[in-house]
């Protein structure tokens, strides 16, 4: 038992060091809980691989016995045969166990990685997403994690045995005949000499370009599929969108360049390591040693049998090289995501008192040089509704997105119930603020789950009540499975319907602060009506902030705020502002023709 423990301790550092050699401490940190299993994988693999030498040694020993002068020792022959057979059996058992265990471990580790990625992506600032492509991020969680597979399932065991076994063979061969051993190493040295050529900066750059080109294909295909209706309407139906095709051309030419750069060197390596070439070198060396120096012919056999195995480390490196490099790059991308600063959570969360909202000299820009909000001061009293109006691009959407803390202001603060949003725990915040935005995203889940997103254990009655209030209940009942209909699978909802589901979602959450981007894009009369109805019903003690497009909504609001170019240009009661006859009045008049 002690021996096993000691062996375990000795092996324990091995996987960690391996990953470090790829330069990825973060990954090894993630994998630390699995270290014992890794050690087991490595030990089993090494034992199995060493046992695999037995049949080869058996052949060599058989040769020595048969070629020896004098009568043949039959018992010895059979002993050798049995030893070979046993070695093979041990090898089978141990490598199978190692490989099975390694793959199980791999599945576990991939799950852990993906969960960590999802958890991190669930906490980064929303603004971070607008600069990333969905396709690229999805690739990190999906393919890149899968690409780590060789690193976890294969590298520890196979790589270690690829070095241990040749080392053992080498020691044995040196005891047989040292000059012959050096000759046998010639092909390995030749192959290793070529390795630096594979790692020239030009090669690495080509490799990176290759990955980038691959990423562009994934992006452009996502775009292509999502924009298919545009492609069909404008692109000429038989012609795929040019961007996809140019990404393809780009990828193929990068790939070819890469192949061209690699092919001669790779071919040289492959030839040096190929069995016929290795055998040729050994035979030439062996023949000259036997004829000139009188080496025992039987001593040539171990070299013929084990010599091929000496190429294993280089072959393993070369063979697994692409995969390992790909895995290394994938780990880099995974790490990049895992290292994104999440929207900071307060260390000592403060519970807000009440739900008065204050924006104090709030400035914000998505990019450093372009401010979208330039010093907003605004107070939203409980029990009042505030309508934000203004031309497109004036910063309305950005303003309302600060309340659910999609972004933190670059300057100034947003205060809820006397507490800076940055001091409020996110759970607490979302219990207090809900929103209905134009860009409605429904999940591929049942209608009920979609409505109850913020209140996972909501009573059925409450869900129905919210749906009724949002004027979508009747439509839901018409769906194939009513409230259990899976959106996006059983049925595709129209824009207005989706908006009403999202309204029902906010109504069910029943938060004291409601932020609403009055739907314009798909709104139909029912949705309009539902939203106004909801606003009127909610009234009482709530704090409501709404981006208003409809005259009625503006008229119903307690306060109107006119936004222009990131700043508040007018504010007050709708009637007062009309009396002033300023910018809001002009806006009001432009609306005048809207109804009747």
């Amino acid at each position, binding site marked *: 038992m002690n021996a096993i423990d000691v062996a375990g301790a000795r092996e324990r550092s091995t996987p960690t060091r391996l990953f470090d050699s790829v330069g990825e401490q973060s990954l090894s940190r993630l994998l630390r809980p699995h270290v014992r299993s890794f050690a087991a994988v490595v030990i089993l693999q090494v034992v199995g691989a060493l046992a695999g030498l037995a049949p080869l040694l058996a052949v060599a020993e058989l040769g020595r016995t048969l070629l020896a002068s004098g009568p043949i020792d039959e018992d010895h022959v059979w002993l050798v045969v049995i030893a070979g057979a046993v070695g093979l059996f041990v090898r089978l058992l141990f490598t199978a166990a190692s490989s099975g265990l390694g793959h199980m471990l791999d599945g576990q580790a991939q799950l852990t990685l993906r969960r960590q990625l999802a958890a991190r992506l669930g906490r980064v600032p929303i603004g971070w997403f607008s600069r990333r492509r969905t396709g690229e991020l999805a690739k990190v969680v999906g393919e890149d994690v899968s690409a780590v597979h060789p690193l976890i399932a294969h590298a520890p065991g196979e790589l270690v045995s690829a070095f241990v076994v040749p080392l053992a063979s080498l020691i044995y061969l040196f005891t047989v005949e040292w000059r012959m051993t050096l000759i046998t190493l010639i092909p390995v040295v030749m192959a290793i000499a070529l390795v630096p050529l594979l790692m020239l900066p030009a090669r690495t750059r080509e490799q990176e370009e290759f990955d980038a080109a691959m990423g562009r294909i994934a992006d452009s295909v*996502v775009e292509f599929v999502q924009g298919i209706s545009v492609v069909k309407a404008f692109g000429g139906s038989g012609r795929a969108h040019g961007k996809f095709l140019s990404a393809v051309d780009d990828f193929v030419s990068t790939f070819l360049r890469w192949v061209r750069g690699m092919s001669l060197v790779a071919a040289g390596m492959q030839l040096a390591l190929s069995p016929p070439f290795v055998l040729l070198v050994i035979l030439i060396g062996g023949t000259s040693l036997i004829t000139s120096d009188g080496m025992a012919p039987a001593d040539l056999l171990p070299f013929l049998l084990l010599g091929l195995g000496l190429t294993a480390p280089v072959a393993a490196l070369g063979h697994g090289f692409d995969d390992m490099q790909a895995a290394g790059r994938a780990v880099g991308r995974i790490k990049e995501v895992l290292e994104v600063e999440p929207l900071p959570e307060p260390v000592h969360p403060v519970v807000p008192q009440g739900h008065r909202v204050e924006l104090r000299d709030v400035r914000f820009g998505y990019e450093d040089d372009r401010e979208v909000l330039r010093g907003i001061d605004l107070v939203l009293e409980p029990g009042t509704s505030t309508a934000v109006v203004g031309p497109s*691009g004036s910063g309305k959407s950005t303003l309302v997105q600060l309340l659910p803390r999609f972004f933190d202001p670059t300057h100034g603060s947003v205060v809820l119930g006397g507490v800076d949003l940055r001091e409020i725990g996110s759970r607490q915040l979302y219990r207090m603020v809900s929103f209905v935005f134009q860009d409605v995203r429904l999940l591929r889940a049942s209608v009920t789950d979609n409505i109850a997103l913020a209140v996972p254990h909501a009573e059925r009655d409450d869900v129905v009540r919210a749906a009724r209030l949002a004027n979508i209940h009747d439509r839901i009942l018409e769906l194939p499975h009513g409230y259990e209909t899976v959106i996006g699978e059983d049925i595709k909802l129209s824009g207005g319907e989706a908006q009403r589901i999202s309204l029902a979602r906010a109504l069910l959450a029943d938060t004291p602060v409601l932020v609403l981007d009055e739907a314009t894009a798909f709104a139909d009369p*029912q949705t309009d009506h539902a939203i106004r109805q909801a606003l009127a019903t909610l009234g009482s003690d709530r704090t409501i902030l709404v981006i208003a497009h409809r005259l009625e909504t503006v008229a119903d609001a307690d306060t109107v705020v006119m936004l222009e170019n990131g700043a508040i240009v007018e504010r007050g009661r709708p009637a007062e502002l009309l009396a002033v006859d300023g910018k809001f009045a002009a806006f009001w008049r432009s609306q005048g023709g809207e109804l009747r």
Partner: protein
Amino acid sequence: MIRMLLRVLGPEYARAMRRTVALMTITAVVEGLSYALLVPVLRELFGSTPDDAVPWLIAFGAAVAVYAVLRYVSDLSGMRVGTTMLHGMYYRLGEHLARLPIGWYNAGRVGEVSVMASRGLLQAMGVAAHLLAPFVSALVTPLTIVAVMIAFNWQLGVAALIAAPVVAAIQTWTARSMAGTDAERHERDKEASGRVIEFLQAQPVLRAGGRTGERFELLDDSLREVQRASRRTVLAVLPGAVGLTLTVQVGFTALLALGASLALGGTIGAAEVLTILVIAARCADPLLSLSDIGAGLRGAQSEIERLDKVLSTEPLPEPREPVQPGHHELAFESVTFRHGERMVFDDVSFSVPEGQRLAVVGPSGAGKSTLLQLLARFYDVDTGTVRMGGVDVRQISTEVLMAQIAIVFQDVYLFDSTIEENVRLGRPDADEADVRAAAAAARLDEVIERLPGGWAANVGEGGALLSGGERQRVSIARALLKNAPVVLLDEVTSALDPVNEAAVHEGIERLMAGRTVVMVAHRMRTVQRADRVLFLEGGRIVEEGAHDELLRRGGRYSDFWNISMAPVASE
């Protein structure tokens, strides 16, 4: 496998592919045969006059040289064929995807197609470049070696040969039993990939719902399923791999024992036995690698099958003798259309005379947008006919039909490039002045002025960097630029803020002038611009006529508008 690959690829690649496979086979045979020369070399070395080995050694060296050249040529050829096929395949897939009916694109397709087009295709085509050569050599070289063995000693050769059918049987059995597991695993991967995309796109909503990563069960469940599926794959792959190893090892052990007993009995010289054992040991590695290569091939094969499935999905049929519509009257004649289980239209007929404007009004889900899509032939009807200029749209070639129609969608999708490029999509060969004029008419010029970078400003994925109103303006400009005789509008002005709405109406008015227009309308202001109104509900036309006339009638149509006018009941 290769056959399916060739079918998917089409005949133009078949020859290059066959030549490559032939080259690889020859290379493997040459490798196997070269080992035959080891027998005389070792016989002389182990004999009394080792010097006699030299001529044989030179012959072996020559064989190795031939092998080296062949291998280089065949590897290169594999790479080249693989790349050419990859390129061709991407083009085929791209063009096919563009031809598939919009109805094919449901929610799950985006994830599926993007996986297929990135990793999937690469994996499938990588077969030729990376897996084919090892596969051919792992099969052909051992077989050649067995033939060599038979030539030198039939007993040992036959013993080795017995392993061949067992290896073949195990390979076939593994392939068959793995197919299901592989398919399931792929299904889980696909599901998870869709969930990840959903998870990312729905971040704002999920955050507001307090659902950060660890609490979003939909994603977590699918990730766990991925892990379970991979565990099942491991368990399923193990018996095959172990069986193969066992067979190879039993075979080698048998050769060892048989060789020992033959040598002891004196039927065969020690040198021959030893050489045969040396080259038999050479067989073991490639044979054992078969299980890895097999897994790779299966992965590629299921990828190719999926590709094949997509490629064999029929796009809407093109007419054999296309007819050019003479004018642009639009008509539905007794149209019935189902979308999945749902009956969208049930015997709907109407017509829009050339140059007139029809407004389509109705509650959500009444099929208003679908009506426009049928006119543009995004789907084919189940029964009845959709006509343009009296011609069945199925008789008009897609190119011609699309050239007649400008569509402004409800759901504006912009490509991740500059504003200019997005506008230019309307008519790629338009000159600068036309593009600017269209932009000005859609009041896009104001947007452009404000954006850093102006015309060259990037709009982000799906147009994310523009506001809803700004996106809509790009799409109007695009339609204006296209200058087509038929205009389909899916409630265009609703996304514009009131300040600019009046101005954009000007552009829309210009877009509609003198053209045949069908517009889906949610706002009365839009409807008032139409010559006639069609009120759609439950898959049927409930009312039809001029706006004022329908309002006076006091039926469903006037009820519909009254809802939105009605004062809201307050507490």
